[in-house]
Every structure is written in structure tokens, then in C-alpha cells.
């Protein structure tokens, strides 16, 4: 999609230039259209360079921002041009002490209808929208591509899951691209948990361990399945758990900067809808 002279892009460029000129940040992380129409991530440190900024295609910067800040000098501040899911990923990384809150600034852009439909995204906009129009998201559970894996007859679903997971070549692309996967060393590389040298990746161990580690922090950005070279719909692994957290605890990852995952707290601090906690006395019956 060509949006070179759209009002949204102009607004983002203006905000980014102002941020640099007013010295609120030292660099702006975004996509640059370079020589030969090649588009790649770039740290803009001079406001003139920002003329080459573009907003398409979908590119997620959260993990990149984290790594940049880690190797930069102390006091280096970064502004990030980010979509909804990206902003949520940044919030989760801030909560988990991977990015210092005062060293990052977001320039939030809302996604269009086409992008929301392509990602099956429920929330195609950041909480702080700087440019673009907030669009209604779509419910992934209404789409057959998701339903066929998560809802309905068990034996059919087993067959579907096995068919896609058997393609896995254990490239670790999903883990590498996921903004939340930040552990070094990673448990998936430990022979005790995931047997080495087994291709396709041990379905039970590799995929379930990875999926559950993200249970309460996945922001549904889709980077995992975008990165997968054999097209496994990895996001489907997370959707049911995300839905459960919303229904039982009114919790969605990446929305609240202060609230930690409800499954870490007891039932008094983080109540579960529909669960009645008896006094210990009544449980003696």
C-alpha cells in the first residue's frame, strides 16, 4: 500500500521531527525507504532524515527498541513509531523491567480496516493514538481460519494441529521474533526440556512450553506466525488463553502499565469471576 503523502504519515513525521528538535529523544525508530525503494528499520537521529520515513508494511519494533536501548549510552532516549500491538508489547516489556519507562516514547499509529482484517486483530490501535483513525477490530473467534483449530470436534482438530505442527523445522523464528521472548539462555534450547536433534520439533515439548510461557503476556501481534517459514498458525495457540484471561479476570496483556498478570496473585488481590472463596472453615465439609 502506498501512503507516501497521506495525512497520517505527515502527522507522524511532524511529531517525530518535533521530538528530535525539542530534544525529548535522541533517536526515532521507524521504517525508512532507502535507495532502490528498499524499506528497512532505521534510527533517525536527524530531523531531515525523517523525510524518508514510511509506515508500511507492518513491522514490529518493540524487541529491537529494547536491544538498542541496552547497547546505547545511559540517558539515550528513543521514540518508536508503533502500531497497537507494538505499543502493547512495549508496555509488557516495561512491566517486566526490560525497558526503562523514561527512556522510551511512543508515536502511536492506528491500523486500517484491511490490516485489522488481515491480522484478525481485536484492537488495531494503540492506547495513545498520535495519528490515524481508531477502527473497530475483528473477533478472531468469528473467523473460520481460527475456529477450525480451536472450536468444535476434537478428532478433526487434532488432525489439523498435527498436520501443521509436523511442518516445524525448529528454526526458532517464532521465539526470535516474539517481542516477549527475552530469556537468555532460553529453556527451549535446554536438552533437558526439549530434546536436541529432533526434527520436526517435539510437538508436545517445544510448542506447548513456548505457548504456555506466553500465556499471560502475549499481545497477539502475530510476529510468530509472520516469521514462521512453513506457515504454522502459531497465534491460534494463544487466543483461547487470552480470551480466558479477559473473561475470568478482565485482563488483557499490554493495556495496563501497573497491573501485573492476575495469575500471579492470590484470589483476594485478583479475583476470579464466578469463583467463591470460602473461609477455611466452610471447606472442611
Amino acid at each position, binding site marked *: 500500500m502506498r501512503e507516501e503523502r497521506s495525512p497520517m504519515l505527515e502527522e507522524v513525521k511532524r511529531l517525530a521531527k518535533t521530538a528530535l528538535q525539542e530534544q525529548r529523544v535522541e533517536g526515532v525508530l521507524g521504517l525508512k525507504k532507502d535507495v532502490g525503494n528498499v524499506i528497512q528499520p532505521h534510527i533517525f537521529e536527524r530531523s531531515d532524515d525523517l523525510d524518508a520515513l514510511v509506515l508500511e508494511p507492518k513491522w514490529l519494533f518493540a524487541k529491537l527498541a529494547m536491544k538498542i536501548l541496552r547497547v546505547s549510552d*545511559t540517558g539515550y532516549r528513543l521514540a518508536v513509531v508503533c502500531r497497537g500491538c507494538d505499543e502493547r508489547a512495549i508496555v509488557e516489556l516495561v512491566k517486566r523491567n526490560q525497558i526503562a519507562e523514561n527512556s522510551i516514547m511512543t508515536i502511536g499509529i492506528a491500523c486500517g480496516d484491511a490490516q485489522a482484517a488481515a491480522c484478525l486483530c481485536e484492537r488495531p490501535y494503540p492506547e495513545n493514538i498520535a495519528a490515524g483513525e481508531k477502527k473497530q477490530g475483528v473477533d478472531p473467534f468469528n473467523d473460520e481460519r481460527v475456529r477450525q483449530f480451536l472450536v468444535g470436534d476434537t478428532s478433526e482438530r487434532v488432525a489439523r494441529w498435527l498436520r501443521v505442527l509436523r511442518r516445524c523445522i525448529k528454526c526458532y523464528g517464532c521465539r526470535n521474533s516474539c517481542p516477549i521472548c527475552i*530469556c537468555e539462555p532460553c529453556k527451549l534450547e535446554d536438552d*533437558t526440556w526439549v530434546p536436541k536433534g529432533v526434527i520436526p520439533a517435539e510437538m508436545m515439548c517445544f510448542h506447548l512450553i513456548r505457548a504456555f510461557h506466553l500465556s499471560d503476556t502475549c499481545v497477539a501481534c502475530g510476529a510468530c506466525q509472520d516469521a514462521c517459514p512453513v506457515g504454522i498458525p502459531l497465534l491460534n495457540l494463544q487466543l483461547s488463553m487470552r480470551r480466558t484471561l479477559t473473561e475470568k479476570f478482565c485482563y488483557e496483556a499490554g493495556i495496563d502499565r501497573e497491573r501485573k498478570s492476575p495469575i500471579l496473585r492470590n484470589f483476594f488481590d485478583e479475583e476470579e469471576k464466578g469463583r467463591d472463596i470460602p473461609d477455611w472453615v466452610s471447606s472442611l465439609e
Partner: protein
Amino acid sequence: MTDVRVYLCRCFSEVDRTVDLERIQERLLQNASVASSTIVDSLCLDSDIQRVAAEIKESGAERVVIAACSTMGRGDSVIEGLAEEGVDRFAIHLIDIREGCAWIHQDEPEGATFKAWNLIDMGVSLVAKKDRSDDVTIRVRPEVLIIGAGPAGLAAAVMVAKLGYTVHCLDRAAHPGGMLRFISRSYPNDEDAVLKLAPYLDEIHNNARIAFYPQARVETVTGFAGNFTVRFSSGGQERWIRPGAIIIATGAMVYLPHGLYRYGETQNIITQMELERRLQSESDSIQNAVFVQCVGARIPERPYCSTICCPASIKNAMRIVEKNPDARVSIVHRDIMMPGSILEDYYRRAMLQGVQFVRYRDDMLPAIKGYEQVRAVEVHDSITGTTRVLDADLVVLSTPLVPNPDNRYLADMLGLQCDRYGFFREIYPLHPLETRMEGIFICGSARWPVSSDQAIVQGEAAAMKVISLLGKGEVAASSFSRVPGQKFGHATVNPDRCTGCGNCVAVCPFDACTLQEIEEKYTYISRVNKMRCKACGNCVAVCLNGAMQVPEHNYRAVVEMIKRAF
């Protein structure tokens, strides 16, 4: 680790009637970690313990697996016995093949034998791969902080001082005594409250070991059991102390029933405490009094019974009759709660003195008659089914004790929890007066509404628990176990793997984990406070990286056990 010695106990044929121990011995030869295995008739007789201990020490085996009965059978005593003979407790692992195998699979000897072999294999893996947690020993400071100088706090202070330790007693009022200062007589023996308090107040003022701080407010608390640091202000002055233990005896408040029974609108409708004041002054003579029980208590917002209001009403009813034998006193109630024989006797005495008891139902509440001054109380008697009008020139409303609003502020500062009503929360019922923080105890009405007698009992009990901690002089973190015996271990962080995500900090039920910034580059690493850690394992389960482990049950041991289970 290739040096595991295995003992297979026949238990005088209780085990090998079903499980073929010799076949298991053959299979164990294939396990590279097993150095030797021995079948014995029994392990729990004294002669066995000495012999086995000697063998183990002589062989130089680093680890021992004992396949015998369950820990709750004789297993624990076997381990204790060996430990007493000098074998390192850490090196021994007990596998249950009697209650857990031979006795429940008597119909399936093949299956039982196979299972027993699997279980022993698992035990060998665990004991070979387990590591030892660190421990830490601290000196316990011989001073105690008591927050609150009501009957509970005073009783605790006097007992602690009597046993030789320094006491710092704080109260937010200008004088000690708590609510007992405003009571005329206390039940069940109608003791004068001033006389009851006198010996305690005497000790507070004269005992050199007790320092009393009036008009006090706690500002900050840091530290752990044996070594707290507390900053507080008293009468405007800042102070700080370092106690080894803290007792909370902050009491409770009387609920003021605004909006109920025309309290505050019509004259001569008062609370029980206000009646106490009147009776203290001795001047009044009351003619027709009606007590209404359960005002604001045992209702959906506050479903508990406050325990002290029935005895208090009966006591005061009898007092009114005592001062004016012509007085007509009624107690309008939902149930009369008088547990124990002494209080039951008290109840009967009141009835004999002419106090009337009328029972009402919670869905048909009594009504006040009279606008400016109260005239009567109309009540539907649920036993006779009739509506009665009781003349009244004084109506006394018995309201429950409710928690101090300050409780949550104090709880946050100390790391404690409050229950759903706002009282301080005790830890699991088998540890009375203890809280989830080691070294901090609760007693009296701060914990649950109690009479002054009960408060004194609890205060002394809390004092005894404190003394049992202080008296040790030096304590190891591993002794602060919630379970019989030593702690299982301590959670330990591998700093090379920890990403500082904070999951462990959020999940710990004892607030034992904190994040420490280790470099300027915004990097955090988790740190475990061994005094607080109880090795429940929650942090291990939520650590995504496997950085947090309890060495005695580390992940390599667990996965190895899982692999060898079937």
C-alpha cells in the same frame, strides 16, 4: 554422581510378600548411579539404625536411598535415627514401597514389583541430582515492639518483661489501657475495670525494662524476624528502635450505628460504650431500659457475631437493676450467645434478677417509638408471635467491634494481610496468632473481637511465642519452617539466567523476593530473603527461564524422575 547406596527393606515380609525385591536388585545393577544395594529385614529397630549408619559411614557412600515404609509410617523415625548416628540428613532419600506400593497392589505382584523398581529408580535420580540450599544464621535481637497498650498489649508487655527482655510499648492515645479505660465493670465477675488495669499499669510505669510511648504513630518498618528496624514518632518526637519481634495489639473500634434505630436523631438512644460512661459516673438512675442486640451485626455486610455484646448487655442490665431495684430492663435479641458455664450462669442470674429477654427475627426489626425523646420500643416477639411495646426511657444499641481503618495502613507497612472484614489475617489455622511474616504476631481485638479477659490470654500467648523466638539467641533461616522439622530448602536464583522480569516478586506468598538493580543499564536481578522464603515453589513454577530453583528439587532431578517413572 555414581555413589548411591540403596537399602531395600522387607519390613518382616510386609513388603516382599508382594514385591519381589531380588528382582529389583537385579534391575538396579543396570543403573549406573547405584553403587550397591542391600536387602534387609527391617530398618526401624535401634540395632538396625546403628548398623546401617555404621555401614554407610564406612562405605563412604555419598547418597543413600531407603526403600521402605512411608514417612508417616516409620520412615521419618528411620531418617531421624540415622541423622542422630551422624549420617547427613540431606544425603538420605526415603521411598515408600509399603503403603505406597506393596499394601495397595496386593492383587498385582507383577505390577507392584515393576512400580517399586520405577519408584526406586526415580529416588536414585533425585538423590543423585539434588543440591544443597544455602542457609543463613542471624542473631536475634532481645527487644520487642508492642503496638497497642490495651489489655492485650499490656499483658504481653508485662510477660515479656518478666522473662527478661526489653519492651517498647506504643499507643496512639496519651494513656495506656485501651478501651478498658472506658468500661465500668468487666464481666463475668463484675470486676472494676480500673482495678483490673492497675497491676499492669503499675508494671508499665515502674518496670525499667518497659518503655511506654504515648501518642505514637509507626512510620516505617524494615527488616525481618530477629532484626526489624522501626521508625516511629511519639508526642512529636522521632525515634527508632531495632526489635527482634513485633506484636500487634491495636484493638478494634466500636461501630457507630448512624442511620439505625434513630441513633443521633432521637434522645436517649445510645451505644453500649456510652452506657459504660454513664455507669462509671454512678449518678444516673435509670427506670426503663431496653437493650437492642445485633445492631449492624450478623447482617449481610457484616455477617459475624462480635462475641462481647451479649455478655456486656447482660452485665450492664444487671448493673442497672442493682442500682435501681424498681427498674424494668429488657434485652431484645436475635440469639443470646453465652458460651461456657460461667457465662451461662451469668445469663441465668440476669433472668432471676428480672431482666426480660425478648427474641426478634432478623426480617422483622424492632421499631423506636417517640420523636424528640424515646418513649418505647415495639418488637415482634418471635417466640410467642405477639407484638409487644416495651416502655423505654433509655435504649442501648449493642453494636459490633469493627476493625480500625488504620489496619490496612499498618498491614501494608508490615507486609501483612487483612481478612475480608479488615481484621489482621492469621496464617493457616494451625499457627494461632502468627501472620505470614515471621516474627510478627497479632492478638486481641485487632485479630478478632474478644473480651478483655480473652485479650489478656492472647497477649500472654503472643508473648510466649515471641519469647520462644528471642530465647534462641541465634537462629538459622532454615528453622523458620511452617511445617514440622527444618525447611525443605530455600529458593535460589541463578544470576546468569535471571532476566529481572519480576514474576517471582509478584507471586511469592511471603514477599520474599525483591528485585535489585545491579548495573546502571537498567538490569535487575531477583534476590531471595531466606528468612522469609518457605520453599513453597511458586517462584520456581513462574520463572520462565528456570533461573529460580530450589536446589533440593531442581529441574534436572524432576525431569529425570519423570523420564524414569514408567
